[in-house]
């Protein structure tokens, strides 16, 4: 479990800024993992399973405190939602600084980048966790990369 704590902590932290809330959600997540261990079916990998639990705990938090629809819409399979958020990225990425651009991406896209590069999940595993079809996730990623490409190449990071 310990090797995953850093990923879980950063996943929560990327969605929630208050330290006490992060601490509570991490504790609740670990408790849920502990309680669910006996029932863990191994249909998915352990990592995918615990990240899925963390995601549900973050969603619970949003629902409880902010009545925020973000996680609801993320779980929606409506392609219309995705394309409108892609237009937003287009505008954001025109700014000069790529790090600033990354910081101002929508929560959905930040989450996608987090799950791919920091949690190191495959498209299939992300589809399993979020309920979004694999093809849609791929398209979002292609679009994100195409938008970021000129900035990354220009900066020669």
């Amino acid at each position, binding site marked *: 479990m310990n090797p995953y*704590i*850093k*990923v879980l*902590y*950063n996943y929560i*932290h*990327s969605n929630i800024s208050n*330290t006490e809330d*992060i*601490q509570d959600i*991490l*504790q*609740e997540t*670990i*408790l849920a993992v*502990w309680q669910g261990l006996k029932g863990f079916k191994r249909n998915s990998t352990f990592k995918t399973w615990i990240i899925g639990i963390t995601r549900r705990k973050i969603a619970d938090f949003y629902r409880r405190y902010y009545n925020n629809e973000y996680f609801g819409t993320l779980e929606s399979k409506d392609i219309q939602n995705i394309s409108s958020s892609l237009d937003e990225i287009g505008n954001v990425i025109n700014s000069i600084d*790529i*790090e600033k651009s*990354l910081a101002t991406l929508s929560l959905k896209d930040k989450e996608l*980048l*987090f799950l*791919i*590069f*920091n949690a*190191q*999940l*495959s*498209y299939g595993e992300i589809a399993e966790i979020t309920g979004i079809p694999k093809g849609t996730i*791929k398209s979002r*990623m*292609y679009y994100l*990369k195409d938008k*970021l*490409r000129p900035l*990354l*190449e220009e900066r020669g*990071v």
Partner: protein
Amino acid sequence: MEDKCQHMRDLIIDYVNTNIDESDKIQLVNHLSICPECRKELAMTLKLNMLISSTMSDVPKAIMESAFSLIPRTDETIATDPVAKLKSSLDALKVIPYALSATKKSIKLALQFI
């Protein structure tokens, strides 16, 4: 973009995440040797990965230390479970043979000096 390159884009993500299996890796390396576009794609994905990974921070000590605090402690579990309680009290008996043999050894050792 060719279909082949489209597929390679997916493999590049797996490669960067070290999730790629050996046969896909060979396929990717062979393709990269003949496709400058996919080499660019790899370079760009590595840069993006580097940027995103750099946003990961270490878990603050206080959060790490309290991470498991909601999980009931083992001794509390023993205290509430009669079978576990009995087992744990029997554990103490297991020590007796070791204690006896240790005493025996030290008596033998002492006798050598008399």
